């Protein structure tokens, strides 16, 4: 335990006030500094275990969390399997070698006892969340949003729990779920994303520290948006959270996920798993606004966001809809997917991914049609600028026995600089003659005609770009719940400031 580390090096925790004057046009220089408004670090007592990963560390994590034996076994199995793997290299990403022994796998805000009410929560944490714009205190009643906030790896506070509990809805931190609903967790954990799924899934399965757990019972429509904000705070730590959502028959839930991290020089690792199970006629909407710290203009620092998200629509006429707005992270590697194994199940994926500076994103989805009458829609909008690389990667598969399946994919790329890259790697596998699968993709730069038209009407270029890009991304933004849509729109605008010279 090393309490010193709660106060990390200060470099990079504040926006640089004045960019180095270089040959780059002042506009671009301005655009690429000083606008990461979430780049502060909270001065909170943090309990961190020393860097390194071994069976002992896995045992220590499990012990700290007072976990049952079966969960420790699960972790150890995953860890042993992980040791046999090497990181995947197939993505269109240049991932520097990650020293997995240099990362601390557990960092929790120090707390004497679990807080019973908001009063007991460290005011600094509350302040952090307030600065993030998270409606955790007064706003909670107004917004009607139940929030679980995960700082570093530990769930800090879940609001509205009592009200939800009256309806039989479980919304709590993963650790609490393990303690209070072990049978439910054990029944579903690793069933959609097994620890053998991939390198990062194995890593997460071994060391995950917390996350959120949601269970919506039969026939219940969750009356409010459930929301989790993830924040990496401590230096040199990784965040490995795990989210498990189960929507029982005829239920509905809309789940929001927000992510931020302070600015730091070194890279931080985020390897999460999200598993969703959707039963008969149930519907889950999962929305993400991802704004992890993306590194500076030269590509220093930033979060490696290497995430496995998958939902299993095993219920008849079940529906899972992923919506994501990705603006942050130095590296994004993530493919929220739907396995459509219930007849008539519906999968959706709506994505806006913005990359700039030296950011790299390789993101997309998989739609696996295993049952008849399943339908899926994919809308992906990539926007790249600076020296960034932005890739869409997708798989649509129709199994031999799945009759009358439909997929429509629209995947557009917008290029805002002549030094960025925009790539599209879809794959379509059809093994049933009744399937109709359509894929369309376009790549183009922002229309000079549109810009000129806006300019002529007195709209400055910067604003015009934001307008045009917002219009371009609108189809996806419209899928976000209202509160999120506003935030996401602002985020887009900030991200794109001055990105066209």
């Amino acid at each position, binding site marked *: 335990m090393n309490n010193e580390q709660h106060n990390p090096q200060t470099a990079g925790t504040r926006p640089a006030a004045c960019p180095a004057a270089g040959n780059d046009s002042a506009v671009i220089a301005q655009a690429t500094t000083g606008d990461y408004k979430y780049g502060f670090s909270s001065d909170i007592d943090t309990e961190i275990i020393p860097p390194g990963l071994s069976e002992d560390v896995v045992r220590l994590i499990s012990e700290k969390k007072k976990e049952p034996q079966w969960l420790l076994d699960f972790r150890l199995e995953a860890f042993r399997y992980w040791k046999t793997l090497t990181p995947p290299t197939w993505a269109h990403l240049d991932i520097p070698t990650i020293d997995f022994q240099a990362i601390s796998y557990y960092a929790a805000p120090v707390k004497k006892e679990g807080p019973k009410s908001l009063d007991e929560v460290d005011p600094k944490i509350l302040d952090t969340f307030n600065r993030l714009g998270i409606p955790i205190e007064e706003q909670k009643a107004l917004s009607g949003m139940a929030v679980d906030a995960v700082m570093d790896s530990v769930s800090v506070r879940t609001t509205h729990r009592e009200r939800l509990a009256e309806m039989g809805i479980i919304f709590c931190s993963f650790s609490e779920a393990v303690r209070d609903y072990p049978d439910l967790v054990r029944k579903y954990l690793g069933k959609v994303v097994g620890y053998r799924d991939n390198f990062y899934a194995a890593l997460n399965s071994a060391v995950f520290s917390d996350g959120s757990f949601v269970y919506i019972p039969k026939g219940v429509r969750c009356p409010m948006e459930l929301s989790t904000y993830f924040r990496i705070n401590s230096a040199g730590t990784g965040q490995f959270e795990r989210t498990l959502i189960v929507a029982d028959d005829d239920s509905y839930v809309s789940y929001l996920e927000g992510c931020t991290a302070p600015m730091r020089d070194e890279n931080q690792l985020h390897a999460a798993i999200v598993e969703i199970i959707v039963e008969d006629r149930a519907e889950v909407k999962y929305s993400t606004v991802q704004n992890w710290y993306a590194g500076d203009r030269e590509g220093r620092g930033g979060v490696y966001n290497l995430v496995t998200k998958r939902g299993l629509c095993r219920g008849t006429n079940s529906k899972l809809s992923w919506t994501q707005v990705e603006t942050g992270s130095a590296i994004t590697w993530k493919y929220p997917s739907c396995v459509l194994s219930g007849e008539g199940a519906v999968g959706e994926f709506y994505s806006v991914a913005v990359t700039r500076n030296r950011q790299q994103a390789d993101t997309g989805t998989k739609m696996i049609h295993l049952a008849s009458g399943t339908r899926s829609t994919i809308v992906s909008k990539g926007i790249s600028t600076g020296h960034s690389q932005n890739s869409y990667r997708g798989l649509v598969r129709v199994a031999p026995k799945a009759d009358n399946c439909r997929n429509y994919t629209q995947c557009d790329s917008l290029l805002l600089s002549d030094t960025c890259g925009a790539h599209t790697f879809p794959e379509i596998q*059809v093994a049933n003659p009744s399937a109709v699968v359509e894929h369309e993709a376009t790549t183009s730069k922002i229309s000079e005609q549109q810009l000129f038209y806006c300019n002529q009407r007195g709209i400055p270029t910067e604003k015009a770009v934001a307008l045009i890009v917002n219009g371009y991304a609108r189809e996806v933004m419209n899928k976000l719940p209202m509160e999120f849509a506003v935030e996401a729109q602002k985020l887009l605008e900030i991200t794109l400031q001055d990105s066209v010279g």
Partner: protein
Amino acid sequence: MKSLSQYINLYAECRRQLDLVPKPIAALRPKALDALRVFSEQTMRRAPYTEAAIDRLLEPDYGLNIQRMGFAVDLSATFRCEVPNISTLLGVTLNDTFRPTESLMRNIPEGLTVCSLTKAAAGMPSVVERYLNTLAADSTPQAALNTLLFQDGVFVYAAKGVSVERPVQLVNIFNAPVPLMAPRRLLVVAEQGASLRLLLCDHSQRNDIDYLSNEVIEVFVHRDASVEIYTIEENGASTRHITSFHCRQEEGARLTLNTNTLSTATSTATYTIDLAGTGADTRLGGMVIADAGQTVVQNVELTHSVPDCTSTQNFKFALSGKSKGAFGGKIVVKEGAVRTNAAQTNRNLIASDDARMTTAPQLEIYCDDVKCSHGATTGQLDPLALFYMRSRGIPEAEARLMLTQAFMADVVDSISYDLIRDRLRQLVERRLSGEKASCAACAAENTCHC
């Protein structure tokens, strides 16, 4: 790739015979051998279907005609040209041995060379050296294997400014009493301002014997030159075909490539095209009709390296029976290749429960001032159109045939040379109506005398 070691051993054993080729060819062997040794240590590249994986295709123990034995085949008796009424400059490659026809020798125009590659390598070594294997460059196991083993090939050369109206028709024929691999090689050079039409036909005359054609084609289109290439593959049910097509286009050069796979056991082709000069233009069209257990894989790797080039691609598959199709189309636009205009479509029909289609259209773009698009669809014939036709009395089978033909119409219609276009239309109709495509079945009078 385990399959390669048998060929490496074969080369060691038969090196003396294999290197009895003119120096420009023999000089390529050592590098090819090195490349193969490296490939043999590597795991194979992912293929959409195992039967189309190169490792699997090269695995059987095929014979190679290393001793250059002549097979006693009366070409004129067995081969009837599938493309009659076109007066072509015809050359035939039997297995892997090129045989120019008399009419070719008689009618070849000034400035055009069509001859065996060995002859060219001996007679004009500097030209052959300048081009041969510079594009394929042992970049894949199949290309390196071809370079290690090929003993003959075809050389087509159009001198500066020479325009040849009459198509050069090169027919590849398999006919051997034993399983045979033919490493076929074609080198095409169109000098500045030249224009050239090539019709490449593939036939195997026996259905019951395993043949493998491992073909490498290199095409150089110089400044403001134009090359049109039409391929028709009508192979037997036991013939497998690997094609490595490479083309480099200089400033203002035009390439039209139209590939038609009408029958085969397994056919896998990669078309690698580099638009290396500004203002170059590429038009690719491809049609695949497959049924039974046929597998057809088509890959395009098209690179826009410089500004102001255009490319269009239109690939269509109609699959029935237990056939499998795969299309991989990659467009790369390099940094600085501004004002690129690249479009690709891939549309596929699946007409049976057991047919499979995999599509991977890819865009890799490193430049902002571009217009790039791709579209891919996989589905079936429009049921409304089918009912409309049946309600007018057209029997279902015929309606399906007409609709499938209509589906392919734009690929065929895009062929600018009308005689080839019309002939291909007939071939497609005949193919779709279930008639087995084979040379012997074509009873039409023809002007080709082999």
